Protein backbone atom coordinates (compact mmCIF):
# COMPACT_ATOMS: atom_id res chain seq x y z
CA UNK A 1 0.00 0.00 0.00
CA UNK A 2 1.35 3.38 -0.95
CA UNK A 3 1.38 6.14 1.60
CA UNK A 4 1.17 3.83 4.60
CA UNK A 5 4.26 3.80 6.78
CA UNK A 6 5.50 0.30 7.57
CA UNK A 7 6.52 1.43 11.06
CA UNK A 8 2.97 2.49 11.81
CA UNK A 9 1.60 -0.80 10.54
CA UNK A 10 4.02 -2.76 12.69
CA UNK A 11 3.28 -0.59 15.74
CA UNK A 12 -0.46 -1.11 15.33
CA UNK A 13 0.02 -4.84 14.78
CA UNK A 14 1.94 -5.07 18.03
CA UNK A 15 -0.74 -3.09 19.85
CA UNK A 16 -3.50 -5.27 18.40
CA UNK A 17 -1.60 -8.30 19.65
CA UNK A 18 -1.50 -6.82 23.16
CA UNK A 19 -5.20 -6.00 22.88
CA UNK A 20 -5.99 -9.62 22.04
CA UNK A 21 -3.97 -10.82 24.99
CA UNK A 22 -6.00 -8.61 27.32
CA UNK A 23 -9.23 -9.76 25.72
CA UNK A 24 -8.21 -13.34 26.50
CA UNK A 25 -7.55 -12.34 30.12
CA UNK A 26 -11.07 -10.92 30.32
CA UNK A 27 -12.29 -14.17 28.79
CA UNK A 28 -10.61 -15.95 31.66
CA UNK A 29 -12.35 -13.73 34.24
CA UNK A 30 -15.05 -15.04 36.53
CA UNK A 31 -17.78 -14.07 34.07
CA UNK A 32 -16.10 -14.76 30.72
CA UNK A 33 -16.75 -12.44 27.78
CA UNK A 34 -17.87 -12.17 24.16
CA UNK A 35 -14.52 -13.47 22.95
CA UNK A 36 -15.26 -14.19 19.29
CA UNK A 37 -16.67 -10.78 18.40
CA UNK A 38 -14.05 -8.98 20.47
CA UNK A 39 -11.21 -10.75 18.69
CA UNK A 40 -12.75 -10.16 15.24
CA UNK A 41 -12.97 -6.43 16.02
CA UNK A 42 -9.53 -6.07 17.63
CA UNK A 43 -7.67 -4.90 14.52
CA UNK A 44 -10.49 -2.55 13.49
CA UNK A 45 -10.61 -0.90 16.91
CA UNK A 46 -6.83 -0.66 17.16
CA UNK A 47 -6.55 0.99 13.75
CA UNK A 48 -9.42 3.38 14.46
CA UNK A 49 -8.12 4.55 17.84
CA UNK A 50 -4.46 4.35 16.87
CA UNK A 51 -4.45 6.14 13.54
CA UNK A 52 -7.87 7.28 12.33
CA UNK A 53 -9.99 8.91 15.01
CA UNK A 54 -9.11 12.50 15.86
CA UNK A 55 -9.38 12.18 19.60
CA UNK A 56 -7.43 13.28 22.64
CA UNK A 57 -7.14 10.61 25.34
CA UNK A 58 -6.29 13.24 27.97
CA UNK A 59 -9.22 15.38 26.89
CA UNK A 60 -11.99 12.94 26.01
CA UNK A 61 -14.61 15.71 25.76
CA UNK A 62 -12.55 17.81 23.30
CA UNK A 63 -15.31 19.60 21.34
CA UNK A 64 -13.87 18.97 17.87
CA UNK A 65 -13.23 15.28 18.44
CA UNK A 66 -14.44 12.54 16.14
CA UNK A 67 -17.26 10.45 17.57
CA UNK A 68 -17.04 6.70 17.92
CA UNK A 69 -19.95 4.44 18.78
CA UNK A 70 -19.44 0.75 19.50
CA UNK A 71 -22.84 -0.33 18.27
CA UNK A 72 -21.88 -3.98 18.77
CA UNK A 73 -21.49 -3.25 22.47
CA UNK A 74 -20.77 -6.88 23.25
CA UNK A 75 -17.24 -6.31 21.93
CA UNK A 76 -16.69 -4.36 25.14
CA UNK A 77 -13.60 -6.36 26.09
CA UNK A 78 -11.82 -5.26 22.91
CA UNK A 79 -12.87 -1.67 23.50
CA UNK A 80 -11.58 -1.66 27.10
CA UNK A 81 -8.26 -3.11 25.99
CA UNK A 82 -7.96 -0.50 23.24
CA UNK A 83 -8.98 2.41 25.50
CA UNK A 84 -6.28 1.25 27.92
CA UNK A 85 -3.75 0.81 25.13
CA UNK A 86 -4.20 4.41 23.99
CA UNK A 87 -4.45 6.04 27.40
CA UNK A 88 -8.13 6.86 27.75
CA UNK A 89 -8.32 4.68 30.84
CA UNK A 90 -5.51 3.14 32.91
CA UNK A 91 -3.83 0.38 30.90
CA UNK A 92 -4.51 -2.19 33.62
CA UNK A 93 -8.09 -1.20 34.40
CA UNK A 94 -9.31 -4.04 32.16
CA UNK A 95 -8.30 -6.35 35.00
CA UNK A 96 -11.37 -5.13 36.91
CA UNK A 97 -13.65 -6.25 34.06
CA UNK A 98 -17.06 -7.46 35.31
CA UNK A 99 -16.00 -7.40 38.95
CA UNK A 100 -18.52 -5.97 41.42
CA UNK A 101 -18.01 -2.20 41.58
CA UNK A 102 -15.96 -2.02 38.38
CA UNK A 103 -16.68 0.57 35.67
CA UNK A 104 -16.24 -2.09 33.02
CA UNK A 105 -19.44 -4.03 32.41
CA UNK A 106 -20.17 -6.72 29.85
CA UNK A 107 -21.46 -3.90 27.64
CA UNK A 108 -19.91 -0.40 27.84
CA UNK A 109 -21.31 2.09 30.33
CA UNK A 110 -21.46 5.84 30.07
CA UNK A 111 -18.82 7.57 32.16
CA UNK A 112 -15.86 5.51 30.98
CA UNK A 113 -13.50 7.91 29.22
CA UNK A 114 -13.79 7.39 25.48
CA UNK A 115 -17.27 5.86 25.62
CA UNK A 116 -19.71 8.33 24.06
CA UNK A 117 -22.83 6.22 24.43
CA UNK A 118 -23.62 3.12 26.45
CA UNK A 119 -24.46 0.35 24.00
CA UNK A 120 -25.37 -3.29 24.05
CA UNK A 121 -28.90 -3.44 22.75
CA UNK A 122 -28.23 -3.85 19.05
CA UNK A 123 -29.50 -1.51 16.36
CA UNK A 124 -29.01 1.80 18.19
CA UNK A 125 -25.53 2.90 17.17
CA UNK A 126 -26.00 4.01 13.60
CA UNK A 127 -28.82 6.37 14.61
CA UNK A 128 -26.67 7.83 17.39
CA UNK A 129 -23.76 8.36 15.02
CA UNK A 130 -26.12 9.88 12.46
CA UNK A 131 -27.24 12.39 15.06
CA UNK A 132 -23.64 13.25 15.93
CA UNK A 133 -22.87 13.71 12.23
CA UNK A 134 -25.87 16.00 11.79
CA UNK A 135 -24.73 18.01 14.80
CA UNK A 136 -21.20 18.39 13.42
CA UNK A 137 -22.60 19.68 10.16
CA UNK A 138 -24.99 22.06 11.91
CA UNK A 139 -22.37 23.35 14.38
CA UNK A 140 -19.74 23.52 11.64
CA UNK A 141 -17.18 21.44 13.52
CA UNK A 142 -14.74 19.16 11.69
CA UNK A 143 -15.98 16.16 13.68
CA UNK A 144 -16.69 12.87 11.95
CA UNK A 145 -18.84 10.10 13.36
CA UNK A 146 -17.71 6.47 13.23
CA UNK A 147 -19.78 3.49 14.27
CA UNK A 148 -18.76 -0.17 14.49
CA UNK A 149 -21.61 -2.54 13.72
CA UNK A 150 -21.79 -6.30 13.98
CA UNK A 151 -22.92 -8.16 10.90
CA UNK A 152 -25.65 -10.05 12.72
CA UNK A 153 -26.74 -6.68 14.08
CA UNK A 154 -27.73 -5.70 10.55
CA UNK A 155 -30.81 -7.85 11.05
CA UNK A 156 -32.17 -5.11 13.34
CA UNK A 157 -34.65 -3.01 11.35
CA UNK A 158 -33.66 0.23 13.04
CA UNK A 159 -30.22 -0.03 11.37
CA UNK A 160 -31.86 0.30 7.98
CA UNK A 161 -33.97 3.25 9.12
CA UNK A 162 -30.70 5.02 9.81
CA UNK A 163 -29.03 3.72 6.63
CA UNK A 164 -31.80 5.32 4.59
CA UNK A 165 -31.93 8.61 6.41
CA UNK A 166 -28.15 9.14 6.63
CA UNK A 167 -27.75 8.59 2.89
CA UNK A 168 -30.63 10.92 2.16
CA UNK A 169 -28.98 13.61 4.27
CA UNK A 170 -25.70 13.03 2.43
CA UNK A 171 -23.73 12.78 5.64
CA UNK A 172 -20.23 12.41 4.22
CA UNK A 173 -18.85 12.78 7.74
CA UNK A 174 -20.47 9.50 8.80
CA UNK A 175 -18.56 6.21 8.58
CA UNK A 176 -20.01 2.82 9.38
CA UNK A 177 -17.68 -0.12 9.82
CA UNK A 178 -19.19 -3.59 9.69
CA UNK A 179 -17.33 -6.38 11.47
CA UNK A 180 -18.29 -9.02 8.91
CA UNK A 181 -17.21 -12.12 10.82
CA UNK A 182 -20.03 -14.16 9.34
CA UNK A 183 -21.41 -15.59 12.56
CA UNK A 184 -24.21 -14.99 15.00
CA UNK A 185 -25.19 -17.01 18.03
CA UNK A 186 -27.20 -19.70 16.25
CA UNK A 187 -24.79 -20.13 13.36
CA UNK A 188 -23.61 -18.48 10.18
CA UNK A 189 -25.48 -15.31 9.26
CA UNK A 190 -26.15 -16.71 5.80
CA UNK A 191 -27.88 -19.72 7.33
CA UNK A 192 -29.88 -17.69 9.84
CA UNK A 193 -31.14 -14.58 8.03
CA UNK A 194 -28.85 -13.96 5.10
CA UNK A 195 -27.21 -10.57 4.63
CA UNK A 196 -25.75 -11.01 1.15
CA UNK A 197 -25.34 -9.38 -1.25
CA UNK A 198 -24.32 -7.01 1.52
CA UNK A 199 -22.22 -4.55 -0.50
CA UNK A 200 -24.96 -4.22 -3.09
CA UNK A 201 -27.50 -3.61 -0.37
CA UNK A 202 -25.56 -0.72 1.14
CA UNK A 203 -24.72 0.64 -2.29
CA UNK A 204 -28.35 0.58 -3.33
CA UNK A 205 -29.21 2.61 -0.23
CA UNK A 206 -26.83 5.34 -1.40
CA UNK A 207 -23.65 4.62 0.56
CA UNK A 208 -20.06 4.55 -0.63
CA UNK A 209 -18.88 1.01 -0.01
CA UNK A 210 -15.37 -0.28 0.69
CA UNK A 211 -14.83 -4.03 0.98
CA UNK A 212 -11.62 -4.85 2.81
CA UNK A 213 -9.81 -7.47 4.84
CA UNK A 214 -10.58 -6.35 8.39
CA UNK A 215 -7.31 -7.79 9.67
CA UNK A 216 -5.05 -6.16 7.07
CA UNK A 217 -3.84 -3.10 8.93
CA UNK A 218 -2.16 -1.44 5.95
CA UNK A 219 -5.29 -1.81 3.84
CA UNK A 220 -7.48 -0.47 6.64
CA UNK A 221 -5.23 2.58 7.02
CA UNK A 222 -5.33 3.25 3.29
CA UNK A 223 -9.11 2.83 3.22
CA UNK A 224 -9.73 5.27 6.06
CA UNK A 225 -7.22 7.70 4.53
CA UNK A 226 -9.49 8.02 1.48
CA UNK A 227 -12.34 9.53 3.54
CA UNK A 228 -14.53 11.40 2.93
CA UNK A 229 -16.28 10.08 -0.15
CA UNK A 230 -15.73 12.61 -2.97
CA UNK A 231 -19.35 12.08 -4.06
CA UNK A 232 -20.62 13.23 -0.66
CA UNK A 233 -22.11 9.93 0.47
CA UNK A 234 -21.72 8.34 3.89
CA UNK A 235 -19.19 5.51 3.77
CA UNK A 236 -19.49 1.93 4.94
CA UNK A 237 -16.41 -0.21 5.35
CA UNK A 238 -17.38 -3.85 5.06
CA UNK A 239 -14.54 -5.49 6.91
CA UNK A 240 -14.19 -9.23 6.30
CA UNK A 241 -13.02 -10.68 9.58
CA UNK A 242 -12.75 -14.00 11.35
CA UNK A 243 -14.65 -14.48 14.58
CA UNK A 244 -12.12 -15.41 17.26
CA UNK A 245 -9.29 -14.12 15.05
CA UNK A 246 -5.77 -14.73 16.29
CA UNK A 247 -6.55 -17.69 18.55
CA UNK A 248 -6.53 -20.93 16.55
CA UNK A 249 -8.72 -22.87 18.99
CA UNK A 250 -11.46 -20.22 18.67
CA UNK A 251 -11.10 -18.93 15.15
CA UNK A 252 -14.14 -19.12 12.89
CA UNK A 253 -16.02 -21.37 15.28
CA UNK A 254 -19.65 -21.03 16.28
CA UNK A 255 -18.85 -21.77 19.93
CA UNK A 256 -16.50 -18.82 20.29
CA UNK A 257 -19.34 -16.28 20.66
CA UNK A 258 -19.29 -16.12 24.45
CA UNK A 259 -16.58 -17.98 26.30
CA UNK A 260 -15.45 -18.31 29.86
CA UNK A 261 -11.93 -19.64 29.59
CA UNK A 262 -10.81 -22.14 32.22
CA UNK A 263 -7.16 -21.77 33.31
CA UNK A 264 -6.22 -24.63 30.98
CA UNK A 265 -8.12 -23.10 28.07
CA UNK A 266 -6.60 -19.70 28.77
CA UNK A 267 -3.12 -21.17 28.69
CA UNK A 268 -3.78 -22.93 25.41
CA UNK A 269 -5.39 -19.83 23.90
CA UNK A 270 -2.46 -17.61 24.96
CA UNK A 271 0.10 -19.96 23.51
CA UNK A 272 -1.88 -20.15 20.28
CA UNK A 273 -2.08 -16.38 20.11
CA UNK A 274 1.67 -15.99 20.72
CA UNK A 275 2.62 -18.64 18.17
CA UNK A 276 0.41 -17.02 15.57
CA UNK A 277 1.98 -13.64 16.24
CA UNK A 278 5.53 -15.02 16.03
CA UNK A 279 4.80 -16.67 12.72
CA UNK A 280 3.48 -13.36 11.34
CA UNK A 281 6.33 -11.13 12.47
Amino acid at each position, binding site marked *: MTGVEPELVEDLAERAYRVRGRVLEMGASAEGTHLGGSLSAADLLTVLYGAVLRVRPAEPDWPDRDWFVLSKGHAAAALYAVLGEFGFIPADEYQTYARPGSRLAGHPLRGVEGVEF*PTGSLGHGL*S*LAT*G*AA*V*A*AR*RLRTPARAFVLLGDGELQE*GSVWEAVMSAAHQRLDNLVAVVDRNGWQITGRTEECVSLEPLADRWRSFGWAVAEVDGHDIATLLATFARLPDPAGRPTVVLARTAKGRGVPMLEDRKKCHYVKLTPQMYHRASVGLRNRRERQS
Partner: protein
Amino acid sequence: VTHTAEETTADAAGTEWARRYEAPSREVCRRALLELAMADPRIMCVDSDVGGLEDLFADLPDQYVNVGIAEANLIGTAAGMAAAGLIPYAHTLSSFAAARACEQIKVDVAGNNLPVRIIATHGGLSAGHYGPTHHAVEDLAILRTMPNLTVVVPADGAEAERAVLATASLPGPVYLRLGRAATPLLYRGPYEFEVGRAVPLADGDDVTLVATGPYPVGMAVLAAELLAGAGIHARVLNMHTVKPLDVEALRRAATQTRGIVTVEDHLVVGGLGGAVCEAVAATSPCPVRRVGVPDRFSDRVGDERDLLTAAGITPEAIASEATAIVSAQP
Protein backbone atom coordinates in the same frame (compact mmCIF):
# COMPACT_ATOMS: atom_id res chain seq x y z
CA VAL B 1 -76.71 46.64 29.80
CA THR B 2 -73.78 48.95 30.42
CA HIS B 3 -70.13 48.01 30.65
CA THR B 4 -67.53 49.76 32.71
CA ALA B 5 -64.23 50.61 31.08
CA GLU B 6 -62.51 47.94 33.14
CA GLU B 7 -64.93 45.27 32.03
CA THR B 8 -64.44 46.25 28.41
CA THR B 9 -60.66 46.02 28.79
CA ALA B 10 -60.99 42.65 30.48
CA ASP B 11 -63.24 41.43 27.70
CA ALA B 12 -60.74 42.54 25.10
CA ALA B 13 -57.93 40.80 26.91
CA GLY B 14 -60.05 37.69 27.22
CA THR B 15 -60.81 37.77 23.52
CA GLU B 16 -57.14 38.13 22.70
CA TRP B 17 -56.31 35.24 25.06
CA ALA B 18 -58.95 33.04 23.47
CA ARG B 19 -57.77 33.91 19.96
CA ARG B 20 -54.23 33.02 20.92
CA TYR B 21 -54.98 29.69 22.57
CA GLU B 22 -58.11 28.27 21.00
CA ALA B 23 -56.08 26.44 18.36
CA PRO B 24 -55.08 22.81 18.98
CA SER B 25 -52.30 22.60 21.56
CA ARG B 26 -49.93 21.15 19.00
CA GLU B 27 -50.37 24.26 16.82
CA VAL B 28 -49.71 26.53 19.79
CA CYS B 29 -46.58 24.51 20.59
CA ARG B 30 -45.32 24.76 17.04
CA ARG B 31 -45.57 28.53 17.13
CA ALA B 32 -43.69 28.59 20.43
CA LEU B 33 -41.04 26.22 19.08
CA LEU B 34 -40.47 28.36 16.01
CA GLU B 35 -39.85 31.40 18.19
CA LEU B 36 -37.45 29.45 20.38
CA ALA B 37 -35.64 28.14 17.31
CA MET B 38 -35.24 31.62 15.85
CA ALA B 39 -33.59 32.72 19.08
CA ASP B 40 -31.38 29.65 19.63
CA PRO B 41 -29.55 28.13 16.64
CA ARG B 42 -28.87 24.93 18.60
CA ILE B 43 -32.56 24.06 18.48
CA MET B 44 -33.44 21.51 15.81
CA CYS B 45 -36.84 20.40 14.62
CA VAL B 46 -36.60 16.65 14.01
CA ASP B 47 -39.55 15.39 12.02
CA SER B 48 -40.82 11.89 11.36
CA ASP B 49 -43.25 12.81 8.60
CA VAL B 50 -45.92 14.13 10.96
CA GLY B 51 -46.92 16.92 8.57
CA GLY B 52 -46.74 20.71 8.62
CA LEU B 53 -43.36 21.07 10.26
CA GLU B 54 -41.64 21.27 6.89
CA ASP B 55 -43.60 24.43 6.11
CA LEU B 56 -43.22 25.85 9.61
CA PHE B 57 -39.44 25.63 9.34
CA ALA B 58 -39.26 26.72 5.69
CA ASP B 59 -37.26 29.80 6.68
CA LEU B 60 -34.94 27.83 8.99
CA PRO B 61 -33.90 24.93 6.74
CA ASP B 62 -30.67 24.32 8.66
CA GLN B 63 -32.71 23.68 11.80
CA TYR B 64 -35.02 21.09 10.27
CA VAL B 65 -34.34 17.38 9.67
CA ASN B 66 -36.88 14.82 8.51
CA VAL B 67 -35.82 11.23 9.26
CA GLY B 68 -38.93 9.84 7.62
CA ILE B 69 -41.41 7.33 9.02
CA ALA B 70 -38.91 5.76 11.37
CA GLU B 71 -39.52 6.40 15.05
CA ALA B 72 -36.64 4.35 16.45
CA ASN B 73 -34.25 6.29 14.21
CA LEU B 74 -36.02 9.53 15.13
CA ILE B 75 -35.26 9.11 18.82
CA GLY B 76 -31.79 7.63 18.30
CA THR B 77 -30.78 10.41 15.93
CA ALA B 78 -32.13 13.02 18.33
CA ALA B 79 -30.05 11.47 21.13
CA GLY B 80 -26.92 11.67 18.98
CA MET B 81 -27.67 15.28 18.11
CA ALA B 82 -28.22 16.21 21.74
CA ALA B 83 -25.02 14.51 22.87
CA ALA B 84 -23.12 16.50 20.27
CA GLY B 85 -24.45 19.88 21.38
CA LEU B 86 -27.83 20.44 19.74
CA ILE B 87 -31.27 20.70 21.36
CA PRO B 88 -33.53 18.49 19.26
CA TYR B 89 -37.33 18.61 19.33
CA ALA B 90 -38.38 15.18 18.06
CA HIS B 91 -41.91 15.05 16.70
CA THR B 92 -44.09 11.96 16.52
CA LEU B 93 -47.31 10.54 17.93
CA SER B 94 -47.55 9.55 21.59
CA SER B 95 -48.01 5.86 20.94
CA PHE B 96 -45.18 5.69 18.42
CA ALA B 97 -42.83 7.39 20.85
CA ALA B 98 -43.68 5.52 24.04
CA ALA B 99 -44.41 2.09 22.63
CA ARG B 100 -42.46 1.82 19.37
CA ALA B 101 -39.36 3.82 20.30
CA CYS B 102 -39.51 2.90 23.98
CA GLU B 103 -36.04 1.36 24.04
CA GLN B 104 -34.40 4.32 22.32
CA ILE B 105 -36.00 6.61 24.90
CA LYS B 106 -34.82 4.34 27.71
CA VAL B 107 -31.25 3.63 26.61
CA ASP B 108 -30.28 6.57 24.43
CA VAL B 109 -32.28 9.52 25.76
CA ALA B 110 -33.20 9.01 29.42
CA GLY B 111 -30.21 6.74 30.05
CA ASN B 112 -27.87 9.52 29.00
CA ASN B 113 -29.97 12.34 30.48
CA LEU B 114 -29.81 14.22 27.18
CA PRO B 115 -31.81 17.37 26.38
CA VAL B 116 -34.09 15.72 23.84
CA ARG B 117 -37.63 17.11 23.74
CA ILE B 118 -40.16 14.57 22.51
CA ILE B 119 -43.20 16.42 21.19
CA ALA B 120 -45.89 13.76 21.03
CA THR B 121 -49.37 14.41 19.67
CA HIS B 122 -52.47 12.19 19.68
CA GLY B 123 -52.13 11.56 23.42
CA GLY B 124 -54.81 9.58 25.23
CA LEU B 125 -57.93 8.95 23.15
CA SER B 126 -57.54 12.16 21.15
CA ALA B 127 -56.96 10.26 17.92
CA GLY B 128 -60.65 9.32 18.18
CA HIS B 129 -61.92 7.56 15.07
CA TYR B 130 -58.35 6.77 13.94
CA GLY B 131 -58.71 3.74 16.18
CA PRO B 132 -56.71 1.96 18.88
CA THR B 133 -53.43 1.79 16.92
CA HIS B 134 -53.33 5.56 17.29
CA HIS B 135 -54.59 5.80 20.86
CA ALA B 136 -51.96 6.25 23.56
CA VAL B 137 -53.39 5.08 26.86
CA GLU B 138 -50.24 3.42 28.17
CA ASP B 139 -47.61 6.06 27.38
CA LEU B 140 -47.60 7.67 30.82
CA ALA B 141 -47.24 4.29 32.51
CA ILE B 142 -44.30 3.43 30.26
CA LEU B 143 -42.51 6.75 30.36
CA ARG B 144 -42.81 7.57 34.01
CA THR B 145 -40.62 4.53 34.65
CA MET B 146 -37.75 6.36 32.97
CA PRO B 147 -35.37 8.11 35.36
CA ASN B 148 -34.39 11.66 34.28
CA LEU B 149 -37.41 12.07 31.99
CA THR B 150 -39.79 14.98 32.63
CA VAL B 151 -43.35 14.11 31.56
CA VAL B 152 -45.75 17.01 30.99
CA VAL B 153 -49.41 16.85 29.90
CA PRO B 154 -50.78 20.35 29.26
CA ALA B 155 -54.48 20.87 29.92
CA ASP B 156 -55.06 23.42 27.15
CA GLY B 157 -53.34 25.57 24.55
CA ALA B 158 -52.19 28.19 27.02
CA GLU B 159 -50.65 25.57 29.24
CA ALA B 160 -49.05 23.86 26.25
CA GLU B 161 -47.29 27.10 25.35
CA ARG B 162 -46.13 27.55 28.94
CA ALA B 163 -44.92 23.96 29.05
CA VAL B 164 -42.80 24.42 25.91
CA LEU B 165 -41.25 27.59 27.27
CA ALA B 166 -40.76 26.28 30.82
CA THR B 167 -39.03 23.08 29.66
CA ALA B 168 -36.87 24.78 27.03
CA SER B 169 -33.94 25.27 29.36
CA LEU B 170 -34.15 21.97 31.27
CA PRO B 171 -30.83 20.11 31.08
CA GLY B 172 -32.52 16.70 30.74
CA PRO B 173 -35.09 15.06 28.46
CA VAL B 174 -38.76 15.99 28.20
CA TYR B 175 -41.86 14.17 26.96
CA LEU B 176 -44.63 16.61 26.09
CA ARG B 177 -47.96 14.87 25.56
CA LEU B 178 -50.39 16.79 23.37
CA GLY B 179 -53.74 16.01 21.81
CA ARG B 180 -54.90 16.12 18.21
CA ALA B 181 -57.86 18.46 17.84
CA ALA B 182 -58.58 21.66 19.71
CA THR B 183 -59.96 21.23 23.23
CA PRO B 184 -61.88 23.70 25.41
CA LEU B 185 -59.88 26.50 27.01
CA LEU B 186 -59.35 25.87 30.69
CA TYR B 187 -57.54 29.06 31.62
CA ARG B 188 -58.98 32.49 30.86
CA GLY B 189 -55.96 34.55 31.74
CA PRO B 190 -52.38 34.48 32.99
CA TYR B 191 -51.49 32.05 35.78
CA GLU B 192 -48.36 30.62 37.30
CA PHE B 193 -46.98 27.53 35.58
CA GLU B 194 -44.05 25.65 37.02
CA VAL B 195 -42.79 22.22 35.95
CA GLY B 196 -43.52 19.74 38.74
CA ARG B 197 -46.00 21.98 40.56
CA ALA B 198 -49.72 21.20 40.37
CA VAL B 199 -52.08 24.08 39.61
CA PRO B 200 -54.93 24.39 42.12
CA LEU B 201 -58.16 25.09 40.24
CA ALA B 202 -60.63 24.86 43.14
CA ASP B 203 -60.22 24.78 46.88
CA GLY B 204 -62.00 22.42 49.22
CA ASP B 205 -61.44 20.26 52.28
CA ASP B 206 -63.76 17.30 51.72
CA VAL B 207 -62.11 15.47 48.84
CA THR B 208 -59.44 16.12 46.19
CA LEU B 209 -59.76 15.61 42.45
CA VAL B 210 -56.37 15.20 40.75
CA ALA B 211 -56.46 15.26 36.97
CA THR B 212 -54.11 15.38 34.00
CA GLY B 213 -54.85 16.14 30.34
CA PRO B 214 -57.34 18.47 28.62
CA TYR B 215 -60.67 16.69 29.06
CA PRO B 216 -59.87 15.07 32.42
CA VAL B 217 -58.96 18.42 34.01
CA GLY B 218 -62.02 20.10 32.55
CA MET B 219 -64.20 17.25 33.79
CA ALA B 220 -62.70 17.47 37.27
CA VAL B 221 -63.67 21.14 37.42
CA LEU B 222 -67.22 20.28 36.34
CA ALA B 223 -67.35 17.43 38.86
CA ALA B 224 -66.37 19.86 41.62
CA GLU B 225 -69.32 22.03 40.63
CA LEU B 226 -71.65 19.01 40.75
CA LEU B 227 -70.29 18.09 44.16
CA ALA B 228 -70.72 21.65 45.42
CA GLY B 229 -74.40 21.34 44.59
CA ALA B 230 -74.51 18.36 46.94
CA GLY B 231 -72.65 20.23 49.66
CA ILE B 232 -69.32 18.52 49.09
CA HIS B 233 -66.32 20.81 48.77
CA ALA B 234 -63.78 19.38 46.35
CA ARG B 235 -60.25 20.55 45.84
CA VAL B 236 -59.11 20.31 42.20
CA LEU B 237 -55.48 19.94 41.20
CA ASN B 238 -54.28 20.06 37.60
CA MET B 239 -51.35 17.66 37.73
CA HIS B 240 -49.85 18.77 34.43
CA THR B 241 -46.50 17.26 35.33
CA VAL B 242 -46.78 13.51 35.79
CA LYS B 243 -43.06 13.25 36.41
CA PRO B 244 -41.65 14.61 38.62
CA LEU B 245 -44.91 14.45 40.53
CA ASP B 246 -45.95 17.21 42.94
CA VAL B 247 -45.75 14.92 45.95
CA GLU B 248 -46.15 17.77 48.45
CA ALA B 249 -49.49 18.85 47.00
CA LEU B 250 -50.65 15.23 47.08
CA ARG B 251 -49.62 14.73 50.68
CA ARG B 252 -51.45 17.89 51.68
CA ALA B 253 -54.50 16.61 49.82
CA ALA B 254 -54.20 13.26 51.56
CA THR B 255 -54.03 14.78 55.04
CA GLN B 256 -56.36 17.76 54.60
CA THR B 257 -59.15 15.99 52.66
CA ARG B 258 -60.75 12.55 53.00
CA GLY B 259 -59.30 11.04 49.87
CA ILE B 260 -58.31 11.49 46.25
CA VAL B 261 -59.98 10.78 42.92
CA THR B 262 -57.57 10.65 39.98
CA VAL B 263 -58.75 11.43 36.45
CA GLU B 264 -56.84 10.70 33.26
CA ASP B 265 -57.36 9.74 29.62
CA HIS B 266 -55.02 6.81 30.16
CA LEU B 267 -55.29 3.29 31.53
CA VAL B 268 -56.20 3.08 35.21
CA VAL B 269 -53.04 0.96 35.47
CA GLY B 270 -49.71 2.67 35.96
CA GLY B 271 -50.51 6.22 34.93
CA LEU B 272 -51.48 9.20 37.07
CA GLY B 273 -53.62 6.99 39.33
CA GLY B 274 -50.77 4.63 39.96
CA ALA B 275 -48.35 7.49 40.54
CA VAL B 276 -50.66 9.13 43.08
CA CYS B 277 -51.10 5.84 44.97
CA GLU B 278 -47.32 5.46 45.15
CA ALA B 279 -46.90 9.03 46.32
CA VAL B 280 -49.31 8.85 49.26
CA ALA B 281 -48.91 5.20 50.30
CA ALA B 282 -45.90 5.45 52.56
CA THR B 283 -46.48 8.62 54.55
CA SER B 284 -50.09 9.67 54.10
CA PRO B 285 -52.23 6.76 52.95
CA CYS B 286 -55.77 7.68 52.02
CA PRO B 287 -58.48 6.25 49.80
CA VAL B 288 -57.58 6.76 46.13
CA ARG B 289 -60.16 6.03 43.44
CA ARG B 290 -59.03 6.05 39.85
CA VAL B 291 -61.11 7.25 36.91
CA GLY B 292 -59.51 6.33 33.59
CA VAL B 293 -59.51 3.91 30.69
CA PRO B 294 -60.45 0.38 31.83
CA ASP B 295 -57.74 -2.30 31.72
CA ARG B 296 -58.92 -3.92 28.48
CA PHE B 297 -58.55 -3.35 24.74
CA SER B 298 -61.43 -1.62 23.03
CA ASP B 299 -62.39 -1.54 19.36
CA ARG B 300 -65.12 1.01 19.84
CA VAL B 301 -65.29 3.59 17.04
CA GLY B 302 -65.93 7.13 18.16
CA ASP B 303 -64.63 10.65 18.50
CA GLU B 304 -62.62 11.65 21.55
CA ARG B 305 -65.62 12.67 23.68
CA ASP B 306 -67.53 9.54 22.77
CA LEU B 307 -64.58 7.32 23.65
CA LEU B 308 -64.08 9.10 26.97
CA THR B 309 -67.74 8.60 27.84
CA ALA B 310 -67.59 4.94 26.79
CA ALA B 311 -64.53 4.49 28.99
CA GLY B 312 -66.48 5.88 31.94
CA ILE B 313 -64.53 9.14 32.10
CA THR B 314 -67.25 11.71 32.81
CA PRO B 315 -67.87 14.47 35.37
CA GLU B 316 -70.68 12.36 36.82
CA ALA B 317 -68.40 9.36 37.30
CA ILE B 318 -65.79 11.54 38.98
CA ALA B 319 -68.42 13.05 41.29
CA SER B 320 -69.72 9.59 42.09
CA GLU B 321 -66.27 8.32 43.08
CA ALA B 322 -65.69 11.42 45.20
CA THR B 323 -69.05 10.98 46.90
CA ALA B 324 -68.17 7.37 47.68
CA ILE B 325 -64.99 8.50 49.43
CA VAL B 326 -66.79 11.15 51.44
CA SER B 327 -69.70 8.87 52.35
CA ALA B 328 -67.37 6.15 53.59
CA GLN B 329 -65.79 8.58 56.08
CA PRO B 330 -68.58 10.84 57.31
